């Protein structure tokens, strides 16, 4: 703690100020689209596409939010999405870490080829495998169900496996070596040493998994029919119609509401990125 503070001071006042200025300017650019979304969500319909653009609504109204809530039961939709997301995260995160461990630390026959295959599965566009996949699930009687969306998660996710493998490879072998010498079993080594060390990475992929579910429109559209099962993205899609007009105000209101859980999660997960400092290193 003391050490980093000292180094901080050494960075120099002007340097720090410059850093903060640049970061703030950048932040403004990053946030502008969000500000527009929030601002629009509080605008009266006539005000939304006015010229010149108003950043601050001329008249603040909660109508859009009320309308949005009337059109879609957003809280229920969010709950539905969470019901899909939670098992999916559990499956994807733990299985991916497990598989990544296998790829990272064991040299079995065909490892490189299999890993290449893993990468390759990420390269074929989902749209062309979507119909054959749907045909299979439909044949099994599982259309209009969450099962097709959740079950595959228990076999890991290619990009997460890739990421975790990279991450594991950067962990010095010294740690496990000590454990192997003590005759520890593989699984134990895995979750006693690797998992704790990989906390930031695990939190990262958990967040990604959640976001993936939260933002997945096409997959949920194909496999969900009943309105009671609607997820957040399907709810948002209800605000623009193929033949009608887009309800901009309520759409922005709903989109803002949909962002809140993720931002909250992001803020909460923040602290895990501060914890990942490795112990000084058992260099020897």
């Amino acid at each position, binding site marked *: 703690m003391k050490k980093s503070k000292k180094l901080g001071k050494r960075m120099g006042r002007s340097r720090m100020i410059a850093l903060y200025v640049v970061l703030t300017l950048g932040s403004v650019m990053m946030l502008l689209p969000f500000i527009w979304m929030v601002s629009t969500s509080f605008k009266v*319909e*006539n005000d*939304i*596409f006015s*010229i010149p653009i108003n950043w601050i609504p001329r008249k603040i109204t909660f109508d859009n939010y009320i309308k949005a809530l009337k*059109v*879609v039961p957003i809280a229920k939709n969010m709950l*539905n999405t*969470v*019901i*899909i997301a*939670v*098992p999916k995260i*559990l499956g994807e995160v733990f299985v991916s870490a497990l598989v990544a461990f296998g790829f990272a630390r064991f040299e079995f026959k065909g490892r490189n080829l299999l890993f290449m295959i893993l990468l390759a599965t990420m390269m074929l566009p989902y749209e062309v495998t*979507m*119909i054959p996949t*749907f*045909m299979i699930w*439909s*044949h099994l*009687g*599982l*259309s*209009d*169900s*969450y*099962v097709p969306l*959740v079950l595959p998660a228990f076999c890991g996710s290619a990009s997460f496996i890739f990421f975790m493998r990279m991450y594991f490879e950067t962990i010095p072998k010294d740690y496990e070596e000590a454990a192997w010498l003590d005759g520890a079993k593989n699984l134990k080594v895995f979750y006693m040493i690797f998992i704790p060390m990989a906390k930031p990475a695990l939190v990262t992929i958990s967040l990604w998994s959640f976001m993936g579910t939260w933002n997945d*429109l*096409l997959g949920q*559209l*194909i496999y969900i*029919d*009943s*309105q*009671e*099962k609607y997820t957040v993205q*399907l709810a948002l*899609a*209800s*605000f623009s*119609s*193929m*033949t*009608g*007009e*887009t*309800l*901009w105000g309520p759409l922005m209101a709903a989109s803002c509401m949909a962002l809140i859980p993720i931002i909250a999660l992001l803020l909460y997960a923040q602290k895990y990125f501060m914890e990942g400092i490795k112990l000084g290193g058992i260099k020897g």
Partner: protein
Amino acid sequence: MKRSIILCILLLIVLGMFNGCSKKTNSKDKNTFTFATWAAGTELEEFQAVIDKVNEEAAGEFKINVLSIPSDYYVKISTKIAAKNSPDFFWLTQELISKYAKMGALADITEQFKQSDSLTPDMYYEGVLASAEYNGSYWGLPWIANPIIVYYNKTMFDALGVECPSATDDWTWEEFIDICRQISGREYRGNTVYGTIIDGWPNIETFIWAGGGDIIAKDGESIILASEEAKKGMSYLQTIIEEGLSPRYAEVASLGDNNVWFEKQRVAMFFGGVQDNFETKVDKMDESVKFEIGYAPMPVCDDGSPWSFDWTASTVMAKSLEGNDLAYKALEAVTKAFFEWKIVPPVKGSLNNVLEINPKKEAAMETIAYIMDYARSANYVPEWSDINDKLWYNLYVSLLNDASFDYRSQMDEIQAYSHDLISKRKSK
């Protein structure tokens, strides 16, 4: 603490799974039908109400369940059909009826349609019915006719001292353009205003038909895009763009959608469907920005005949239900219910429904009544999606961006291309 969290999560998962699994109770109950629609949000509520009423009146003879597809409608429909899980009834816009019929996804309802006691082909306006026809058979029941009319801002016309068209005017395109010239570029309420707005809407048929031409001939097979009449019609579009009578293409999106320009009193005349709800919007406006809406039919063809492009959609039946009388009964019942929901109902003699459904349209009734006899939908072929792509990218957008674009030779090219496409199909 941790243990109880884990237990909670597990419980949530199990509950979710049960919620998420579909109980296939209606494994093809012979009298339950699924109806897929693109309606979502508020429209869906109205749709559901219509269906509920139909179910009630059916009193157990049949039951219709609603399947709403809020996005990527055709992706999901075609995927379900591929998986032999086609919705029993679904909405189809006019351009795709011939395609889906050719692909074998639709039930041929010609016999049942002709032999019906309550809804027969001759009850429909001919212009609308043509859209549900392909290869000599009927493939669906149209449930709406939404012809294009001209909405205009009466208040602006008066303020600028321009003579308004009348409700059943047979004005020509040249007169229309003249009016635009009198308005475009002038100042009104602190802004520059335009006579009209063209940004890809109205569709290209509007201009091709204006000259008396067409894209596909009545026989549904030959391409007549490159006729002199069609080219004359396109020249009207060119004039409008060249003289800046409409906002620039790149400028239109600044107000969101094209109808917003009319609502914010930036354009004097707007080509809109009868269904458009300007009246409701104007009613909700502040007094200071309200305006009076006037109605006129489309300017007539070069040969003096009145016309309008009719946007229509049909409800079609899945192929597997072909010949199924109960299904047809349900289809018919639901279609008739739509006549009391959407304007304009596509059957003759039901113009009163328009007032019942939307009383605000009263001032438009004269024009609507007038135009319904002349409105028609286009002739479509299964190759339409490719032809339309070319029409849009190579012809319409090019002209929108550059008034000096040589649309005439482009039309020749597209004609040749389309001709090739269709002959390929015929030779198969």
